[in-house]
């Protein structure tokens, strides 16, 4: 998952970035509105967290322009004063939810995860697809009720595929969304992780949860339960 944090206060920016990094996100951060808008429109993002009071370009304007340029990922706004006029303005501009400062890490991350889930068409915080259940809150994966031991990268890959269930996800998209820029981007790594996931989730090769489409990428094949 790739998240963008636009916040002018360096400490808070670093803190929020850390929250997301800790949860396995790849994080880009911007200190002002202009830089933020550039990243919001040019980077392959899964989520953006935008402070409303920003220098150069207001948060509401960023959201408005990003939406106008066709960015459809969920946007979470951070507001300082819980005035409804500003909240409504942000939501009307195209944001999906708001969090009022000062927030707890849990609150912010719960909202962020809920937005990602919702965008992927999932109704509950636990993503259930056939015998596979990924609990986004507890970060646990079970297969037929028993825990599956996944590494952080495997977990992220599975979460991404589940959130985009039914859709083809290319290897390059996966690389962009799952790994920070400074990491070596070797598509072979993705292949390795996919292979390991298949082994862990489908030991007897009866489910075939991840389909490989040659030259296009991967697709999660199992249906959502309950269907969205």
């Amino acid at each position, binding site marked *: 998952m790739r998240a963008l944090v636009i916040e002018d206060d360096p400490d808070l920016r670093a803190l929020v970035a850390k929250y997301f990094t800790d949860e396995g996100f790849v994080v880009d951060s911007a200190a002002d509105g202009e830089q933020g808008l550039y990243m919001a429109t040019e980077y392959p993002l899964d989520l953006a967290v935008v402070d409303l009071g920003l220098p150069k370009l207001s948060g509401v304007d960023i959201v408005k322009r990003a939406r106008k340029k066709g960015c459809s990922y969920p946007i979470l706004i951070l507001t300082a004063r819980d005035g*409804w*006029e500003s909240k409504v303005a942000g*939501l*009307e501009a195209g944001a999906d939810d708001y969090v009022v400062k*000062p927030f707890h890490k849990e609150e912010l991350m719960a909202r962020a995860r809920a937005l990602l889930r919702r965008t992927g068409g999932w109704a509950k915080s636990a993503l259930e697809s056939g015998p596979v259940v990924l609990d986004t809150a507890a970060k646990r994966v079970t297969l037929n009720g028993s825990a599956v031991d996944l590494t952080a990268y495997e977990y992220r890959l599975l979460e991404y595929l589940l959130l985009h269930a039914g859709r083809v996800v290319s290897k390059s998209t996966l690389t962009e969304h799952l790994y920070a820029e400074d990491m070596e981007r070797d598509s072979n790594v993705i292949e390795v992780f996919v292979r390991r996931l298949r082994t862990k989730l489908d030991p007897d090769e009866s489910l075939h949860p991840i389909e490989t489409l040659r030259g296009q990428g991967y697709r999660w094949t199992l249906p959502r339960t309950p269907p969205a």
Partner: protein
Amino acid sequence: MMSLQTRLLLAASLVLLVFVGLCGAGLETAFRQAALDAQENRMRGMVYALLGAAEPDETGQLELNDGDLPEPRLMRHDSGLEAAVYDETGTVLWRSPSQAGSLPLVIGPEVGKWKLERLGDAGRFALAFGLRWLVADDNRPQRYTMLVLEDAGGYEEQLAVFRRTLWSWLGAVAAALLAALVLVLRWGLQPMRRLVGELRSVEAGEQGQIDAPYPQELTPLTGALNAMIRHERSQLQRYRNALGDLAHSLKTPLAVLRGLAGDARLSGDTQRQLDEQVGRMQQIADHQLSRAATAGRRALAQPVAVQPIAARLAAALHKVYADKGLAFDLEVATRLMARVDSGDLHEILGNTLDNAAKWARSRVRLHATRAASTLELAVEDDGPGFPAEPERLLERGVRADSRVPGQGLGLAAVVEILRAYEGEIVLERSAELGGARVLLRIPGA
């Protein structure tokens, strides 16, 4: 204090009265003088005519023959015209046949002089003429005084008629002038009345500013009033922006602090204490900021339409609670206007609707009406309803359930704003939806 119109009318009536009075008095004096002159002239004519008719008798004395009298009235008793001739000693030598009663004692004027008198007794004019009678063959001239008396009735009558005509005309003119004055005043003061009406409408929130064109004497005033209205409104906006900036610069470090409080290197106790303090600071800041941002009832507030605000909030909350797929029923007439500041109405409706959305299973309903001059907003949901002591929820920082994210300030903030409007809040069970019902009453809105 006396109204402008009354003052002007009173002053103008007084001036008019004095003017008409002086005018009438002047005219009357002039007429009286003219009538008196005419009277005297007529009487002089009579004296001359009598002199013309006089003959010397054999002794050289002046004699008047009744048959030669120039005026038949002198012959008729009680005709009102009388004449007499006195000699030097004041003895009556001759009197006209019309003369019956007493004759006044006449101190004759000098020779060739006239003397007109008004006799007090019977309302008569007396004109005396001093003369010397010279008979050719006698060089001893005789000194006489000729007296003509005429009843003043005709003169008085003439004067009375004039006076009646004069004063009735003057009265009519004064009345017409007064009526014209009233009309002029009404017309002249009409812009003032219109201005007052417009101000009332602005005050009642029926219009945003003073619009109608005014005479140039009033335009500085209306301009200043409009500037004041605008200033008052923009002042509030500037004030709120400043509060927003303050909130932003206060809450951001608080958010950082709260984040640091979660640092795993700190002991659990320290973490909890830090978080608690941050929470307290946040509550204080929220409380003071929302209180400061409340506009409350203002004389020149622009009225706001309730429906668009409710619709915006419902759309926003629908998005925030997208998981629940809430249905918002807005029973608000599109023309329902509220004399509540737009920001305050956003807070009132936002917090109550948010509270309802938080607890609702599938439905939230807003019913807004105006009963007399009181705006009533009822927000209902189909959630579990209020706990046993719902009033506790109105206290700042008390949440019905701490698992639901929120500041715990929602309804308390509403209470705070309502206080500024002298409104009231009732927490009850929704009869129709089965959940909670929050009824807000804002008088005079």
